[in-house]
């Protein structure tokens, strides 16, 4: 195993992780909600009354990096892959996260923080499958 020291950012990543944990914990404590992005998105296709709140949360997600970007240079958010991968990847992420009732935020952050076995299995599975996918792409293909 070779560590990529050049791109290694332990402190910024740890700090960012703490901020993510605080946002999820605050939402749970105040609203009794799991901060799960795939679930918030899927809520748009349900007849619920929280359309405005969902939209406001997503607006915050989009605005945050734009605001930070005015004072601090952020790495590129553009994926360096072809169009087929972009479309296939989007379909798989949308379909898979809903089938599994959660993604990196709902299962990975909230579920693991709640010591849910279900979320631990989901997180272990999608991490393993993502690692296998990158291995095939970079080292076999």
């Amino acid at each position: 195993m070779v560590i990529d020291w050049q791109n290694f950012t332990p402190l910024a990543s740890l700090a960012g992780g703490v901020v993510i944990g605080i946002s999820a914990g605050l939402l749970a404590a105040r609203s009794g909600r799991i901060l799960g992005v795939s679930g918030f998105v899927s809520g748009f296709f349900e007849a619920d009354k929280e359309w405005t709140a969902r939209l406001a949360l997503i607006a915050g997600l989009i605005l945050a990096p734009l605001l930070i970007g005015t004072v601090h240079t952020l790495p590129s958010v553009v994926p360096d892959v072809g169009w087929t991968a972009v479309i296939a990847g989007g379909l798989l992420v949308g379909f898979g996260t809903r089938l599994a009732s959660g993604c990196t935020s709902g299962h990975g952050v909230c579920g693991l923080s709640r010591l849910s076995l279900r979320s631990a299995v989901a997180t272990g599975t999608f991490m393993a499958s993502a690692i296998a996918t990158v291995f095939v792409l970079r080292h076999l293909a």
Partner: protein
Amino acid sequence: MRPLFALFIGLLFGAGLALSGMTSPAKVQGFLDISGAWDPSLAFVMAGAIGIGLVLFRVARRRLPPPSHRIDPALVGGSVLFGVGWGLVGYCPGPALTALGSLDPKALTFVAAMLAGTVLQRFVASLRVPAGGLGRPAGDATANACGA
């Protein structure tokens, strides 16, 4: 959930994602590439988020239904598919949404495809494929449902 509070949570969550490096597909793929030049940074994101999360979710536990421990084929199958998409592009749902502000055509296309995948799963689930198939009933309120 008041809209103003939701906006605040979105801003905080988005700031955390951006600071942590999760919004960079290159960094995500660098983390997932354990047999190449491995960038372990994102393990620190998980450690930070779950470290504080263990405390805050303990405080919040009366406000939430008890966590589910049910393991079923939909959970595992869905997670496998999600992982393939995540590895392929480097976007999971949160960072994909934060990338919308860049107005980059690939970010916009990914989110459109992700929405299509969401709708497709709901459609398949509505067909009620027998247990073990691709379908999870659309209204299934799993206790740990993302955003339940």
